[in-house]
């Protein structure tokens, strides 16, 4: 017998279930309990950067919105710096931007929605800058382990074309599932990013 490797074993994931709102968004479950709630509004008036909305549907294998899903978003600030000590890039932290938000899908419309700012470019591996993007994490009843993907921005064509992660996606068609499309609504930039579980436009999810 060789020597033993004494690593601990990972705790297994289990579904967040249909009542995930109780724990992560109790207002949506129908009651008020905490003084401070986490939500989808990620900016204050002091936050630096272009105000944007990122929104979309989470669609199951029949194309039906998963109205009980919950999405979390993690991103860099306008300068391309994460508000976390592990980011050692020489860029300023924005003290008015945590960079994280949480949005349950709407029980009626199915939309998730984040009010945030457009992130700057973050340096990737081997000195290759990554195009501006946000990381998304999706949980729901029926999802055994949270799914991770990224949303890039349709108006960043040059940066997207050079992005090391987008370029790992072999099929053009699948790469497009990672691009949020920009439009304007009431003078506000809105990016639409649907998360599709199955079928022709299935979103690229990551093992990362």
């Amino acid at each position: 017998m060789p020597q033993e490797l004494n690593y601990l074993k990972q705790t297994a994931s289990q579904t967040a279930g249909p009542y995930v709102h109780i724990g992560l968004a109790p207002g949506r479950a129908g009651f008020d309990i905490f003084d401070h709630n986490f939500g989808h509004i990620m900016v204050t008036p002091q936050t630096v950067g272009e105000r944007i909305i990122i929104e979309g549907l989470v669609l199951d294998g029949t194309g039906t919105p998963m109205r009980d899903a919950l999405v979390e978003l993690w991103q860099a600030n306008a300068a391309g710096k994460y508000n976390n000590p592990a980011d050692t890039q020489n860029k300023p932290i924005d003290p008015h931007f945590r960079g994280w938000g949480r949005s349950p899908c709407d029980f009626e419309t199915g939309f998730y929605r984040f009010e945030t700012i457009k992130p700057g470019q973050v340096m990737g591996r081997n000195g290759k800058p990554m195009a501006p993007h946000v990381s998304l994490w999706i949980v729901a009843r029926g999802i055994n382990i949270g799914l991770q993907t990224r949303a890039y921005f349709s108006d960043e064509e040059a940066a997207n074309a050079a992005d090391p992660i987008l370029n790992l996606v072999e099929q053009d068609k699948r790469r497009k599932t990672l691009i949020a499309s920009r439009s304007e609504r009431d003078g506000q930039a809105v990016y639409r990013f649907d998360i599709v579980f199955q079928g022709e436009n299935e979103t690229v999810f990551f093992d990362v």
Partner: protein
Amino acid sequence: MSEFYQWDRAIQPKAFTPDYKTSVLRSPKAALLSLENSLSEVTGPVFNHHDIGPLDHDLIRNYAHGGDPIGERIIVHGRILDENGRPVPHTLIEFWQANAGGRYRHKKDTYLAPIDPNFGGCGRCLSDDNGAYFFRTIKPGPYPWRNYVNSWRPAHIHFSIFGSGFSQRLITQMYFEGDPLIKLCPIVQTITDPAAVERLIAPLDLNASVPLDTLAYRFDIVLRGTRSTLFENRLEGN
């Protein structure tokens, strides 16, 4: 930059697990795209005590409206560790559960067991310097659900943990030692490694109980470990 060890796919459940029927239409069909960690994955949100109220970790008191909730009073405690056995300090832990009768305070739950007017069923805390956490609650009851005609969830508490990086993000469920429903549950069975299932079962911890007052269960959680850099990778290239 410290990268995480990869997800242990021998332990973690698959996305498509047809015996848990809801997963059939809610699982990707294409393979996941494997990525090495970048700054986007090794960083994650930082929380602090301003995010949390003084009663958030006491489910016996945090929704009490003039009385105590019905049911077995329990303490749940443990540590958040990584695969290297290192504590994960100051990380946000959120938990939610049904009441003693197996009923959730949720507008979509229609089970006939009654709502408890003094029980909300959710709480949260930060792990301490040593990764330790604790909270007080009522032992949840089992409840029926529509998978097979007569499916019942074992009593469980849902946990959400952040870790230090967004790729450590984990949601899981804690079960209770001795519950005969555990081995019958299609959600538990999405995990095929029997030892991994056992690690989701909290043992009674009499030493941590409060005599004449509250029983205790212990539940440790292990997140992905961080890789030591034995030979420097050029991660940021600068």
